[in-house]
């Protein structure tokens, strides 16, 4: 007989049973590490131009070569990770806060349900990128505004999951017991419901993280995202189209960085979902 383990430990154990998930976690750890350490490990400044040494192929001085302004591509890819990951993370936080609030109210307070859900339906009726473009056109392009716009764009996805989970949870005995004991709505939502929403939130957050990175890159590519000199993966690809036949490393480094990050996040998200309670699985 093994001794009983906490749900968290059980989840991690289930997660680590799959090698592909472990590998993806390692990739994410590596990218996060590179992003955090960028100012120390990057060999050059991210915006430092050295025009004379432009479009140099990968050599020992510049592992990933240089771009059309003589900027080091490795350095910019590392700093790009910093921007892309922090945008992703902040979007997840913002969307989770807004979405959890919306979803909890809709799921627990019956009177609000219809109105709030129609509101999320309306928000979801806009294609992600179009809503982001429209918001950014009004707000003006900046890193902060990109986070704000994408945070709003992904709010309904969180709201739906949280509402679904809340509808299941509210029928469970411990919630009914708390209600019988006269706990206030606010107390039930914060103390009894919220802690049980953490797992679906983490799963959904992982996917939103991935989508946010893809959408941010697309926005930068379209010229509707962060300003063009900021090193983001999308900006790097946008600037390199001209040089595809003479300097394909320019488009490969940021492109592969996006694919690797998004793929790893999706694998981890899938692994998390599989490892979670099967009842909650259905809601996602």
């Amino acid at each position, binding site marked *: 007989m093994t001794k009983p383990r906490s749900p968290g430990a059980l989840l991690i154990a289930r997660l680590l049973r799959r090698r592909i998930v472990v590998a993806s976690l390692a990739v994410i750890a590596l990218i996060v590490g590179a992003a955090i350490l960028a100012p120390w490990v990057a060999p050059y400044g991210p915006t430092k131009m050295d025009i004379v040494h432009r479009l140099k192929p990968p050599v020992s001085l510049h592992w990933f070569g240089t771009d059309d302004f003589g900027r080091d591509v490795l350095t910019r890819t590392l700093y790009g990770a910093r921007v892309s990951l922090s945008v992703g993370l902040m979007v997840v936080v913002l969307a989770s806060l807004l979405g959890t609030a919306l979803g909890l109210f809709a799921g627990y307070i019956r009177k609000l349900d219809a109105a709030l859900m129609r509101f999320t339906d309306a928000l979801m*009726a806009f294609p992600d990128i179009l809503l982001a473009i429209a918001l950014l056109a009004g707000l003006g392009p900046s890193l902060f505004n990109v986070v704000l716009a994408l945070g709003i764009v992904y709010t309904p996805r969180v709201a739906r999951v949280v509402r679904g989970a809340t509808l299941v949870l509210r029928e469970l005995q411990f919630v009914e017991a708390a209600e019988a004991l006269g706990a206030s709505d606010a107390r039930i939502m914060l103390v009894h419901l919220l802690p049980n929403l953490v797992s679906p939130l983490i799963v959904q957050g992982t996917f939103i993280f991935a989508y946010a990175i893809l959408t941010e890159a697309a926005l930068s590519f*379209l010229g509707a995202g962060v300003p063009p000199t900021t090193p983001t993966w999308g900006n790097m690809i946008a600037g390199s*189209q001209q040089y595809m036949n003479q300097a394909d490393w320019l488009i490969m480094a940021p492109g592969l960085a996006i694919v690797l990050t998004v793929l790893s996040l999706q694998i981890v998200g899938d692994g998390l979902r599989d490892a979670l309670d099967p009842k909650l699985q259905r809601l996602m």
Partner: protein
Amino acid sequence: MTAYLSRRFAGMVVVMLMVAAIVFVIARVVPGDPAAVMLGSNATPADVAALRTQLGLDQPLPVQFVLYIRDILSFNLGNSIFLNRPVVDAMLDRAELTSWLTGLSVAIAVLIGVPVGVLAAVRRGTLLDQAVTAVSMLAASLPSFWVGLTLIEYLAVRLGWFPVAGYGNPGAGLGERLHHLILPAVALGLPNSALIIRFTRTSMLDVLHEDYVRTARAKGLGPWAVIIKHAFRNALIPVLTVIGLTIATLIGGAIVTETVFGLPGVGNLIVSAVLRRDYPVIQGALLIISGLYVLINMAVDLLYAVVDPRVRY
């Protein structure tokens, strides 16, 4: 049925109103006086004041909203500042290209997604299934503009199999137009087939375990006959939802794809509008595209009834 339809319709109207309200709020976030923005830099203060009155911008916000809804109902979404013509006309001009592009991409996504998904479900747990899962996950991780640029460089520029960009000459026939659309449709449809594959697979797996499928098997029907006649038909319902969702995603994706391939469609109009600070076009596009999305979803819901007579209303 009638009761369901009217309820569904009422819900749709509420969502549409909310959509309009959101676009209204976004329109008011835009910096500067909309009237001044519309008239450009050569306008006199008197011109601006006149247009403000004409647009009802001097009215209280709730009145403005009512006026706004009235305008929408009469298909008046304002004028493009840059093109100096109604937004609706500008969108309609470009709608044909975008419809073709979206249609072709949906066809590609469905033609790949559904059969591959069914196959993966039937061969569950085999190497084939795992490969399908892996590839579909990879496809969903590819930025479509990156795929597009790569396709252009190799298949159009280096091999010359496809045109590099654009939509052909003004007098081009349908064949030439479609030739221009193949690469964009692949770049757009391929990543989106991933979602359809995964949904079809999951949905098929659920159905294959149902009693009636076992019964059909027990009756001695051939394996593919069971899969097609019994399992697939029932698995189709959730798959339809995803196809509906995919259409909406593809309309959004067309914004990026049309820019990459220089196609003068609705998406291109929207991106140009960003560089032109042409806010009415962006807001008009928001309204029209989200309206389409709501309608498509409604249509998908109604299709359930056709596919599965058991669905009760």
